[in-house]
């Protein structure tokens, strides 16, 4: 990557890190508030769902980051995301069947980190194809 595109990509990536940091902060605050107890069902729901707001911002930042990439890197990300969706679907579907035969129930919170992990692995694999 040349200096100009590298610095542009880095500049576009900064909002993603900021949004992720905001997510962690809001999540910690939300969990602490819920642990201390929030009065009223509506307030409880609002506090519980508050970490979703920085996640929405993160989604927009990721879209902006991908739109700023050149065509080959967009193709790499498309392949990586396709692999990630397929791998996550296979993993969650298979584990769902295993839960029927006594495997412990797993929270839905596992799905996103799993998908992100497959996305990262997919990016490495897809980039390797174009080297």
């Amino acid at each position, binding site marked *: *990557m040349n200096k100009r*595109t590298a610095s542009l990509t880095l500049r576009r990536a900064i909002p993603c890190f900021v949004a992720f940091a905001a997510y962690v902060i809001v999540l910690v605050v939300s969990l602490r508030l819920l642990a201390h107890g929030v009065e009223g069902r509506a307030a409880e729901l609002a506090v519980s769902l508050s970490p979703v707001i920085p996640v929405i911002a993160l989604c927009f930042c990721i879209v902006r980051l991908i739109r700023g990439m050149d*065509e080959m890197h967009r193709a790499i990300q498309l392949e990586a995301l396709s692999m990630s969706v397929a791998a996550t679907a296979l993993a969650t579907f298979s584990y769902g069947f295993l839960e029927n035969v006594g495997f412990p129930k797993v929270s839905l919170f596992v799905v996103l980190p799993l998908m992100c992990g497959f996305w990262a692995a997919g990016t490495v694999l897809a*980039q390797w*194809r*174009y080297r």
Partner: protein
Amino acid sequence: MKNCIQELRAARKWSQADLAEQLDVSRQTVNALERGRYDPSLPLAFRIARLFGVAIEDVFQP
């Protein structure tokens, strides 16, 4: 698809980074193009041909 981007670039004594900057793509993309690992879109193929001042069919061969 075969191409002669590397030869055209070398004739002008440009580095991959120089070419990448002029095409507004990453250096990895230029490398993948030269090695024939990535086939460019039609708009990028035209930009490459225009930059070198040659016809598109003189750069890319099926």
